[in-house]
């Protein structure tokens, strides 16, 4: 029997994923044109096994992009703050200066409908629900980064109460 399992984005201000003790720190101006450069800089001395042929950089870039574009409005005067720890697993805390992910609850509702269509093998409906469009979505936004993120960050993905800071962890191989 196949079961319907759906994840969700969680808000938990006091989650241990926000404990930055012992983590390294970097901050960047919110320049949209440098998002991938910032991810590459944070991962400059990352263990090769964590990189997974560019997948870690891609997933970190998505979080940085969300902070810079949707949080800080690509305003270079606003900072994006990144805490990171690449010992044993890849762990990040990313904080922007924006008003937070205000549509988080409606995103969770949308994600549930999307995954239900997939579970039912209703690919016509799934194609319609493949991308999320929120009030802040621009014409170039893919609208799918968080779907992948919930699967990729297998150690958790948590937002703070203001929803402008996210903590994520990915474990690799048998290290979990």
């Amino acid at each position: 029997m196949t079961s319907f399992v759906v994840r969700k984005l969680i808000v938990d201000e006091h989650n241990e994923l926000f404990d930055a003790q012992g983590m390294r720190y970097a901050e960047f101006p919110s320049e949209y044109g440098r998002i991938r450069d910032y991810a590459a800089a944070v991962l400059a001395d990352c263990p090769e096994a964590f990189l997974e042929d560019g997948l870690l950089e891609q997933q970190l870039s998505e979080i940085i992009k969300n902070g810079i574009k949707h949080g800080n409005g690509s305003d270079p005067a606003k900072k994006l703050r990144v805490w990171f720890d690449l010992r044993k697993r890849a762990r990040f805390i990313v904080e922007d200066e924006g008003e937070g992910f205000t549509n988080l609850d409606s995103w969770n509702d949308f994600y549930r409908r999307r995954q239900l269509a997939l579970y039912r093998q209703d690919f016509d409906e799934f194609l319609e629900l493949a991308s999320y469009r929120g009030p802040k979505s621009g014409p170039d936004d893919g609208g799918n980064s968080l779907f992948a993120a919930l699967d990729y960050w297998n150690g958790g993905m948590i937002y703070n109460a203001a929803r402008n800071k996210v903590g994520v962890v990915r474990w690799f191989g048998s290290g979990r």
Partner: protein
Amino acid sequence: MDRFLDYRELGAAPDGFIEYLVSGDCDLYNAPAFLKALMARLDSGERRLRLDCAGLRYLDSTGVGAIIKLLQTAKAKGGEIRFTGLSGTPRKVLTLCNVISLIKEDARDRR
């Protein structure tokens, strides 16, 4: 690092699909122009496109969004987008967001 996206039309295959060779990074900087070019092809009346992605090195959510829009538009017009050569990180990204379930693939040596 040089991050480019190259997409060139190879012409019509024997089965009628217009083939494109796609290589490089389909990311937040390059995907919008890629989408615009292929949407123009669909709008001009072409209904069946095949994307050879064997040279595609990087795919992010903007690139996945472009693929979704192409699939939605082709379906609305009664057309079809097919793929060959998807592997590595682009394939993993499509799998993570479940969009791989919408992708119709052909063998690359089919030509």
